[in-house]
């Protein structure tokens, strides 16, 4: 495949995405109806995702970076995940940029978006080069891009030949850093902008915010976040939470009541914690960790650093931000408020080691 062909294929997908983002097109209308059935997001949540978090622009520099990261193969297999439906666009652009032939296994929970996206591709040859299959059966030496939880990926990989090459995008979460010099209201607005999309189910979604300063400052910040989340909930209501998610929220709330303080923001639970914290479940819940002693704060973080997929920094990035970045060096970094708008410049998960032989894989190495 020539570079021009790669670029053309990627642009064809992005162009298809623009059709889906537009609620005036037939494709956009159909996608919205299907996503309402499959994602569990509210209608407003789907609109937010399509209009604000689907990559519909692509600069020359981003395209270059994406193609450099994609590599080259005769065929790429892709397993898509369910939690952030727009992720299918990035996954497919990386795949079509790498290979002329792409084989896709859709998420069983949310198969609609990827299907709509493929069907919306104008160029028939590009469209025909992406084949949807019920099971991935890569041959030795072929590339497979896998998106999902570590456990699911391990199970999938166990069925592959040891010489299959896999690129993994596994389990993770987002972390926000609120520096000492930051305006709390502005930071709260930015944090909420990152928490609300996809009801916080993405691996880039911040679930913990480290707040530099004392307990009182964290409390004030929490009150700002409460207002922001309540405001967002009126404009973009929380979607459906499964029974297990509701149970985890109850567990998180009761645990946090005993280990710190809890602020309620409608259906969201914010826990203010000093030393130890329980990771909140998705559904717009947060831990606000008091960081007036960097060492204690970071000690808690070290144990889970390998799971930090994204770092959102409010302000100019002070000492705390630098120390956090050093603990999670491969997390994708961005300004707080833009964590859920990563540039379309390659795989979103920068923790990945790239392509690895299944035979050499140690999915539990992070543990």
């Amino acid at each position, binding site marked *: 495949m020539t570079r021009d062909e790669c670029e053309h294929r990627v642009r064809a997908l992005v162009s298809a995405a623009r059709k889906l983002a537009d609620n005036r097109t037939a494709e956009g209308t159909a996608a919205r109806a299907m996503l309402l059935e499959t994602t569990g997001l509210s209608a407003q949540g789907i609109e937010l995702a399509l209009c604000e978090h689907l990559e519909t622009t692509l600069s020359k520099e981003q395209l270059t970076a994406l193609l450099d990261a994609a590599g080259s193969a005769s065929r790429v297999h892709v397993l898509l995940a369910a939690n952030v439906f727009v992720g299918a666009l990035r996954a497919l652009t990386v795949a079509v940029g790498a290979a002329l032939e792409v084989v896709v296994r859709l998420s069983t929970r949310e198969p609609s978006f990827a299907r709509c996206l493929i069907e919306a591709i104008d160029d028939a040859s590009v469209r025909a080069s992406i084949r949807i299959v019920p099971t991935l059966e890569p041959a030795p030496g072929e590339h497979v891009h896998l998106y999902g939880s570590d456990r699911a990926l391990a199970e999938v990989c166990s069925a592959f030949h040891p010489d299959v090459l896999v690129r993994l995008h596994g389990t*993770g979460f987002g972390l926000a850093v609120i520096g000492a010099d930051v305006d709390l209201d502005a930071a709260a607005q930015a944090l909420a902008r990152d928490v609300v999309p996809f009801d916080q189910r993405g691996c880039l979604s911040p679930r913990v915010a480290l707040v530099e300063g004392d307990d009182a400052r964290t409390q004030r910040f929490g009150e700002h976040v409460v207002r922001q989340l309540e405001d967002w909930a009126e404009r973009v209501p929380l979607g459906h939470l499964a029974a*297990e998610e509701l149970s985890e929220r109850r567990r998180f709330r009761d645990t946090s009541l005993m280990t710190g303080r809890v602020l309620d923001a409608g259906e969201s639970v914010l826990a203010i914690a000093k030393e130890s914290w329980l990771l909140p479940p998705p559904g717009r819940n947060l831990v606000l960790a008091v960081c007036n002693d960097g060492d204690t704060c970071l000690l808690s973080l070290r144990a889970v650093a390998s799971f930090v997929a994204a770092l959102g920094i409010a302000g100019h990035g002070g000492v705390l931000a630098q120390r956090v970045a050093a603990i999670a060096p491969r997390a994708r970094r961005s300004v707080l408020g833009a964590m859920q708008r990563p540039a379309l410049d390659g795989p979103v998960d920068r923790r990945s080691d790239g392509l690895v032989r299944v035979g050499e894989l140690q999915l539990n190495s992070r543990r």
Partner: protein
Amino acid sequence: MNHHESDALHARVCAFIDATGAGLPAAEPFDAIACDLARMQARARTGVEHLLAARGLSPENLRLASEIPAVPTDVFKLRRVACHDQEHDEVVFRTSGTTVGQRGCHAMRTARTYLHAALTWGRVMLFPDVKRVHMGLLAAPFSIARESSLAFMLEGFTASFGTSASWFMHNDELSVEALERLIKRASGEPIFLAGASFAFVHLLDGLGARTLRLPAGSRIMQTGGFKGRTREVEPEQLRARIAATFCLELDAVAGEYGMTELSSQAYEGCVRRHLGLKTRAAPRGIYIAPPWMRVRAVDPVTLAPVAAGEVGLARIEDLANVDSAVVIQTSDRIRELVQGFTLLGREPTATPRGCSIGIDEILSAGAGASS
């Protein structure tokens, strides 16, 4: 903390154990003791006072144990749950694994009540027919595993019920030779083998296809799951393998349900059934809690009791948890039955959907030996 108040409650709980363990009525109701425990624990600021306040409850108005909010087991991993200061710890049991850099712990000012409860119910459910047996423990002794509640309990068993005791764990290796020596030494007298389920798997793997016939009257206790281990074995499959390897009836292999966050244990009623006893006996799979411990199935979201026979999460009221949390909330799915309860595994985590991490995935990061 008022140690006199704690001492008095320990005495009341032990009296309750003495009476009900012997099948006699207790001098005072379960609920009265449970509520007094909750009041002391709230006053001592174990954290339960925040749960009470959040539910609009006053400790002074508690009348029934069912009104006491349950402390999630996660809390033991994140903060100290104890009425007394650290300097008064007699023993500290720790959970397996790590959570955000910290292992969970259950500190006890005195392990006297814990031991009393364990021995009383152990006698009823595991040794109702014999005074003493030869003991084979698939674990390290408590002198080495000083944070293991299982090792502590088994040490208590050996002192009270053991003719002899052999500990088979040395430098993290299980010794088949030591087990063979125990069988020879027992000379046909009953043997009690006990250990964590994963330890039995390890032993069975070491034995391969061999069998080791245990003497008539022998019985086996296995406990715990496989969290963090590289292999999991389905419980009934494990029981069958154990029974076949040691040439015992299936009913001679009983499961124990306990955890670091509790002071009491429940056992499958099959050993008593195997021995032909009518009371506190039940088919395999049904666990029977002691009278000082109530295990209830509750709705995972509302924590309200579920309808009889329905599946819920185990809420456990344990009078022997005198200085910590008289009521805990687990993530274990159970079904309450007339005779007892069945275990159905852990609550499935809501996430992961895709790459988003779930609470239990992060909790189990770095999991090691269970106790």
